[in-house]
């Protein structure tokens, strides 16, 4: 069973910067066509320099092989090319150069709940979503009861999903995806959504899939999950393979490099240009800590993040979401902002996120910040997610009044503020 099922050779994907940043309009295209004869008069060297400056390789010279039954993690910072690679292998986008061969039935999960429509019932959405993921009607029919049972929504299966709570919505969406049983599975950061119980379930399911001898390619920011599930890992950096091999070694290489990268201001706009396909309704431009230094966060400090976001469309009801992760990517905690904001199309606004004293223990952390909309009825819909940003180090707390200043790793991430004991009569 050592045969190669995925062979990737010199795969590359080039994007033209600027060209796709705004929606193309016919006028621009006409202007370019009219300007073309002039461009031809330029000397060849001019032209090359010109194009080199305006294009960027989201993926370059990527080659690897995957054997049957292997579970491979793909890790890397934002904009490293992970999603681009997965999208090419899923055939959502085409490569610019190179080629890949995939042998076996392919299932790809770039998100859960693709094609869900709020007006349709759970039953109807199950069929629609299953069909979009590539299941046949007879397979969906056969597994239907199983899907519904796994999602635990038997009573509501004939209710339009717009009345579902976000938890029900995600459970159903994931359950459909979990019953897709391909030979080769490509999974993007689907684990980043949902609550902890849901994430556990995803992990468990992924483990099942792996044990059944299926081949899995798995993009994640959760190093713990990658270490747990994957035999080997590919580390991408700026579109190139930086390391490939045993997952634990690859992870420690990646973590070592990513702590070097810790920076004060995160410019996401620059990174996003790598993937012009994504044009969220509201997107992050920059993120930075406010009032604290990321390298030295006092143990009892309030975390304050300043964000610049741009509305690409007018949105009247968006909120912010934040998760804190430990250095290995395991989630520490999450919170949704209670406030609802609105933004005009084209407006750039600054916002502040404040997390009053999260009581973190000493150690290195990072954040996922998301902007989205949603309520219990429709489920949450994220417009833009900045994953693995805002790295910071929490210092030891001051050793005052008996507070523990030494912290052992197996004590967890949260230093509970109070423990009250009283003698009972």
């Amino acid at each position, binding site marked *: 069973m050592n045969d190669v099922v995925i062979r990737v050779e010199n795969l590359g994907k080039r994007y033209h910067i600027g060209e796709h940043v705004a929606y193309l309009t016919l006028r621009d295209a006409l202007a370019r066509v009219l300007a073309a004869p002039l461009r031809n008069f330029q000397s060849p060297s001019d032209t090359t320099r010109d194009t080199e400056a305006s294009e960027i390789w989201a993926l370059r010279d990527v080659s690897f092989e995957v054997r049957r039954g292997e579970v491979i993690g793909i890790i890397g910072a934002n904009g490293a090319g992970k999603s681009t690679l997965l999208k090419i292998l899923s055939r959502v*986008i*085409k490569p610019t150069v190179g080629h890949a061969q995939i042998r076996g039935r392919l299932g790809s999960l770039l998100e859960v709940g693709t094609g869900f429509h709020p007006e349709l019932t759970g039953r109807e959405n199950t069929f629609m979503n299953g069909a*979009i*993921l*590539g*299941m046949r009607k007879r397979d969906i029919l056969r597994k239907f009861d199983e899907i519904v049972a796994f999602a635990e929504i038997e009573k509501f299966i004939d209710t339009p999903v717009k009345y579902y709570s976000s938890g029900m919505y995600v459970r159903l969406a994931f359950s459909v995806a979990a019953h897709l049983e391909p030979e080769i599975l490509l999974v993007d950061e689907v684990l980043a959504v949902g609550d902890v119980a849901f994430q556990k379930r995803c992990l468990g399911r992924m483990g099942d899939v792996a044990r059944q001898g299926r081949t899995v390619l798995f993009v994640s920011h959760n190093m713990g999950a990658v270490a747990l599930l994957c035999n080997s890992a590919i580390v991408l950096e700026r579109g190139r393979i930086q390391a490939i091999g045993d997952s634990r070694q690859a992870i420690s290489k990646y973590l070592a490099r990513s702590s070097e990268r810790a920076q004060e201001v995160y410019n996401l706009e620059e990174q996003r240009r790598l993937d012009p*396909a994504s044009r969220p309704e509201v997107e992050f431009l920059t993120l930075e800590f406010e009032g604290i230094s990321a390298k030295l966060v006092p143990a009892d400090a309030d975390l304050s993040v300043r964000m610049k976001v741009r509305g690409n469309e007018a949105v009247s009801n968006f909120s912010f979401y934040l998760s804190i992760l430990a250095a290995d990517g395991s989630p520490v905690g999450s919170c949704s902002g209670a406030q609802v904001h609105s933004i005009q199309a084209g407006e750039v606004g600054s916002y502040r996120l404040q997390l009053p004293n999260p009581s973190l223990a000493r150690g290195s952390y990072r954040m996922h910040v998301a902007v989205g909309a949603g309520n219990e009825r429709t489920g949450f819909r994220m417009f833009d997610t900045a994953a693995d940003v805002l790295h910071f180090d929490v210092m030891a707390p001051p050793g005052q009044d008996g507070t523990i200043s030494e912290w052992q790793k197996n004590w967890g991430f949260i230093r509970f503020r109070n423990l009250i004991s009283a003698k009972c009569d």
Partner: protein
Amino acid sequence: MSANSVPASIPDSAQIDIAPPSGWLDIEFRELWRYRELAYFFVWRAIKIRYKQTLIGAAWAVVQPVATMLVFSVIFGYLGKMPTGKLPYPVFYFSGLLPWTYFAGALQSVTNSVVEQQHVVTKVYFPRLLLPISAVIPGLLDFAIGLLVFLPVLFAYHLVPGMAVLTLPLYILLEMATALSVGLWLAALNSLYRDVHHLIPFVVQLWMLLSPVVYPATLVPERWRWLYGLNPMVGVIEGFRWSLTGSGQPSNLLPALATGGVLVVLLGGLAFFRRMESVIADVV
């Protein structure tokens, strides 16, 4: 979980080759056929969603052509004295508006088919051609309902479809092909240039004036009729009217011109759409 269950059959071939886009007309009809169930689901979903959360539901399929028919009959017929031959105004306008309403709707759905599904297009692979192809189908339901309403109107004027009604399916097919052929170009352009979105209502409006909806094709001077007939909807609407009412048989020229024109535009549209397909997920 069902570790021992048979794996779901993903409608993919055993080996997938991924390579940069190439060629102009490499449509994989076999692949399209493998994905036919998904097309069915797209159609099914469009029909399901169409009248959800509307007050009068499918009655909209009746209201629109009937109301337009009444207005046209009064304005262009009784006031404008349009020479509609033997046909009473309501019959003339209804029989023109039925195919026109379907066509205008289908053209718009095909044009918007890719952009509307951009969320799916950027996440899952399937032959993109499924979207425009399945977008011409749902409107047929409204069309059929309209047809049922039309029959009593026809009978009220003591008209009965003759043998000509047997050609009706041909005209419907021709009409679907017309909507698809032009829509393919517009759908691909729409995902690249949002201008198309603004262009569509305008195109539909002008196109109606260039088609024999309001007036009979015989109003166009004989020597220009070949040019006029290059608009496939001329053949479709004239043929449609004739097949239901038995009067005003179109010359053989019109349907032949229409079919030829549509085939050319359709082949071009398929090639263009395929060509653009590789760019679409990058930019929508």
